[in-house]
């Protein structure tokens, strides 16, 4: 059976589980012929899913919920990532020690759907984000950490497994940095989960295929956690751009393992509810969701997978 999976971002250890399952033949064992499509800043997995370009996509929950509210019923079928890797990294020299010090500072934020946890956090802290005095100055951060390195921003968004290490690589020692993990601030949202179209779940055969897919993928994740270095190499080999560097991927693999640790793919509904809550409190002129979603996650596939 052919399965196409659309990743959220470029080929890197963040998606090691799928690449490992592919390379180690776990998919083949399950009788699946899997195509992995890398993503990028211009790829919206939900759009690819809607356009029929993929059967299943890796995406973050805020984006999936937004899509759902726009009338495109996508459903979470599995959640390999237990924890969020998002954090705000600040230069220590700016004097920021706690969230209360953000006042009038320039903060780099990722947009493209990733800004909502940040907005929720700021509104919880009582900061205005429209640039008015007494609030915080928000700049749109590209997909790297240049604004921090070049001192255009006091803090930037980073992932524990990627951008943070770019800051370190740029020659800024860890003790010159202050980090705030979203997980710790109570504004974390669920990251890399697997999503499919809701109506397809009515088809038992599809559920069966997905169950096989999830099971094999989770096997990949388990293997990746156990064999960090080998998995990093697999990712590097899978990268067609030739840009992935082995050292960086190894380190990323280590951090990713911390986020997937303990997940068998089952969605923690409490975490999902917290995500919804965070998003609902984010406010702003274009709220990502305006009401609590119904049926945005399904256990059908996981139930089946566990029974295999």
């Amino acid at each position, binding site marked *: 059976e052919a399965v196409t999976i659309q990743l959220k971002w470029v080929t890197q250890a963040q998606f090691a589980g799928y690449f490992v399952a592919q390379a180690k033949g776990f998919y083949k064992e399950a009788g699946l012929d899997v195509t992995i499509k890398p993503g990028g800043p211009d790829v919206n997995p939900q759009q690819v899913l809607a356009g029929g370009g993929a059967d299943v996509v890796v995406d973050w929950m805020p984006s999936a919920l937004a899509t759902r509210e726009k009338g495109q019923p996508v459903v979470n079928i599995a959640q390999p990532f237990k924890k969020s890797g998002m954090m705000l990294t600040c230069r220590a020299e700016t004097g920021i020690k706690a969230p209360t010090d953000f006042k009038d500072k*320039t903060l780099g934020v990722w947009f493209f759907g990733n800004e909502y946890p940040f907005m929720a956090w700021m509104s919880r802290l009582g900061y205005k984000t429209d640039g008015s005095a007494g609030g915080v100055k928000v700049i749109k951060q590209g997909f790297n950490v*240049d604004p921090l390195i070049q001192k255009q921003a006091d803090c930037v968004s980073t992932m524990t497994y990627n951008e943070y290490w770019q800051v370190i690589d740029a020659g800024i020692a860890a003790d010159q940095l202050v980090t705030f993990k979203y997980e710790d601030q109570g504004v974390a949202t669920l990251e890399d989960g697997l999503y499919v179209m809701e109506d397809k779940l009515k088809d038992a055969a599809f559920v069966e295929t997905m169950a096989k897919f999830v099971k094999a993928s989770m096997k990949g994740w388990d293997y990746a956690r156990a064999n960090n270095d080998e998995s990093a190499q697999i990712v590097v080999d899978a990268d067609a751009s030739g840009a992935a560097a082995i050292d960086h991927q190894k380190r990323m693999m280590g951090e990713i393992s911390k986020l997937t640790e303990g997940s068998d793919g089952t969605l923690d509904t409490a975490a999902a509810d917290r995500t919804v809550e965070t998003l609902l409190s984010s406010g702003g002129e274009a709220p990502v969701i305006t009401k609590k979603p119904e049926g945005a996650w399904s256990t059908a596939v996981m139930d089946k997978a566990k029974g295999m």
Partner: protein
Amino acid sequence: MKALRNLFAPALLGVAILVIWEAACRAIPIPQVLLPAPSVIGARIATEIPLLAYDFLKTVIQAVIPGWIIGCAAGLVVALLCDRFDFLKRGLLPLGNFFSVLPLVGVAPIMVMWFGTGVAPNIAVVVIMTFFPMLVNALAGLQASSHLERDLMRSYNASWMQALTSLRLPAAMPFIFNALKINSTLAMIGAIVAEFFGTRIAGMGFRMQTGFGSMSLDLVWAEIAVAAVVGSLFYALLVLAERAVTFWHPSYRV
């Protein structure tokens, strides 16, 4: 009256496109997150006018127009320098070609590095995009005068500057206007794309990008519609100016 008639044909075609689009969206339910129906987009435009106006200000007034002016001026000046100093023509021109496609994707982040987090990097991107078409067209245009006309200026021992203003620039105008027109649309694209990579959190490009993120495709298309209208008006103005300046060109004497 004539203007009205001129608008009729394109308007008819436009209405046809919209009707087909709307019908398609209803008949084969195209997912909203792929392509919203015109009616949905229209509704969104109606409710978002202040936001669209604000983005228009941020993108068109602050980035497109200054960038277009600087880029076109720079292209023209370099073309003139190359024309004036043969050494530059031979030395600089081949290098000028290198800047013809500094790819946006690579340049935009660098511009942010160099020019900071304000509007300057966006302007810089527009300048880079518009520079080359003007350079190439202006150079071709400066060659467009006839030998007889140039001999006449020679017989007057006209200085380079005089020959330029009396003969070669007027003769180059059809080419220069081609560049201005091409650049008017390139500048719009450039400014919007620059916002994809820039740091500002306002503007048409920014709104489109976040619109994608939150799957508000109707908002994306609302911005696209504004871009199209603005771009077309910009272009139309240039066509009017072109007609006034190059009225003598055979293409206007059918």
